[in-house]
């Protein structure tokens, strides 16, 4: 790694002032588990890192209420994994966290960093796309909320602007009859980054699916909702035929990236398989 300036502000305001420098080499850092590997590979060479570790309570904590979960941006993935509030409100998140990287990384990685990194291989973004969530962002001009559907703009690109900081994540309250699942497919070793992530969410009204959400990640340049699959599911019976048709629609809709985890054609087929499996397993 190359030398850089490291600053450790004690307040959010001071952090924003230090981040807002008009320099793409200035970034916030929490646990560093995503940034440091990029720095070691010289994919990112910061001029200044703004460490958030001395900022206290405002960025921490996991709270549950009528409106859903409020999670501080500095909550670690381990805290989320073991949180009974998360398990009660969104068991699909707790399950996914168990195979998200490893214990040591989860001990330092934070939810804010997980989202701000914009890496399409992350496990929680597709899940949050189906659960419904919004991200609170602070900047010099004040605060704003970004709907999770508007957060991921491209490969490692998010709607969080230079000089802005994710401070909190709200996960929507879930109706008691919502069925969810996240299917993670790793084509190389079991603990590799996913080749495909498929998250699904649906509710039934009588013997039909009333509302459905489907999201795909990892195979694509960013985590995406699949409207064509959701349309097929909505109003249909939750049958093998319906799930197969929705999976076909997802496979047709995605634009997979070829890499060491598979060709674009292979990943398209894996999207088909794993969207179907996620729908079959949703509970």
């Amino acid at each position, binding site marked *: *790694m*190359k*030398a*850089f*300036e*490291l*600053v*450790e502000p004690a307040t959010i305001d001071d952090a924003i002032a230090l981040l807002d420098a008009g320099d793409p080499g200035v970034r916030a*850092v929490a646990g*560093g*588990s995503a940034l*440091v*590997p990029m*720095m*070691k590979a010289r994919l990112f060479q910061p001029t200044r*890192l703004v*460490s958030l*570790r001395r900022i206290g309570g405002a960025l921490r904590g996991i709270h549950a209420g009528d409106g859903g979960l409020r999670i501080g941006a500095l909550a670690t993935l*381990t805290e989320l994994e073991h949180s009974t509030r998360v398990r009660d409100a969104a068991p699909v998140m707790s399950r996914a966290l*168990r195979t998200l*990287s*490893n*214990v*040591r*990384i989860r*001990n*330092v990685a934070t939810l804010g960093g997980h989202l701000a990194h914009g890496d399409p291989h992350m496990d929680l973004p597709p899940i949050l796309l189906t659960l419904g969530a919004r991200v609170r962002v602070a900047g010099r001009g004040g605060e704003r909320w970004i709907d999770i559907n508007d957060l991921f703009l491209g490969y490692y690109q998010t709607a969080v602007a230079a000089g802005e900081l994710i401070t909190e994540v709200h996960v929507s309250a879930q109706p008691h009859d919502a069925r969810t699942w996240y299917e993670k497919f790793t084509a190389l070793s*079991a*603990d590799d980054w996913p080749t495909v992530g498929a998250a699904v969410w649906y509710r039934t009204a009588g013997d039909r699916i009333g509302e459905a959400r489907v999201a795909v990640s990892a195979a694509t340049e960013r985590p995406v909702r699949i409207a064509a699959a959701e349309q097929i599911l909505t109003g249909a019976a939750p049958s093998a035929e319906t799930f197969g048709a929705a999976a076909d629609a997802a496979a047709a809709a995605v634009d997979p990236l070829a890499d060491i985890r598979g060709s674009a054609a292979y990943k398209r087929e894996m999207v088909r398989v794993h969207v179907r499996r996620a729908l079959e397993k949703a509970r």
Partner: protein
Amino acid sequence: MTHQRTLSFTLNGRPVTATARTHETILEVLQRDFGLFGARESCGQGLCGCCTLLVNGTAVSGCLYLAAFADGAELVTVEGLARGGTQHPIQCAFVEKSGFQCGFCTPGMILMTKELLGRHPRPTDEQIRHYLSGNLCRCATYPDIIESVRRAAELV
């Protein structure tokens, strides 16, 4: 000077200071300034677990942990587990069950076992595999490692 830091932290129970540049990892400081090589860099990406150390009681990958973040923290490496010439019960269990071959990954395995037993004092095999899934043994002594962890749970 913002590119260099004087760090104060507790290392294996002893208060210490060190000077580190901002782009150095804690692993580099432990090796260079303190001659501690139990935590060693292998994959350099947080995947293999050879660089495991405990920071404030939780396991981290030292190869990704910026040295500056150790300021004010309590660090434990495998060298800090023995007490007065007596090995830690987890170390005894690994010796008793031969949970190693070349030994390169062993410090990481032992410290992850400490992390595991802190949360699950009587771990199931599934919990053992879950906690050690991020630690690689290229000699593939995994069955003996799992046996060692089971034994460690009895001894701790």
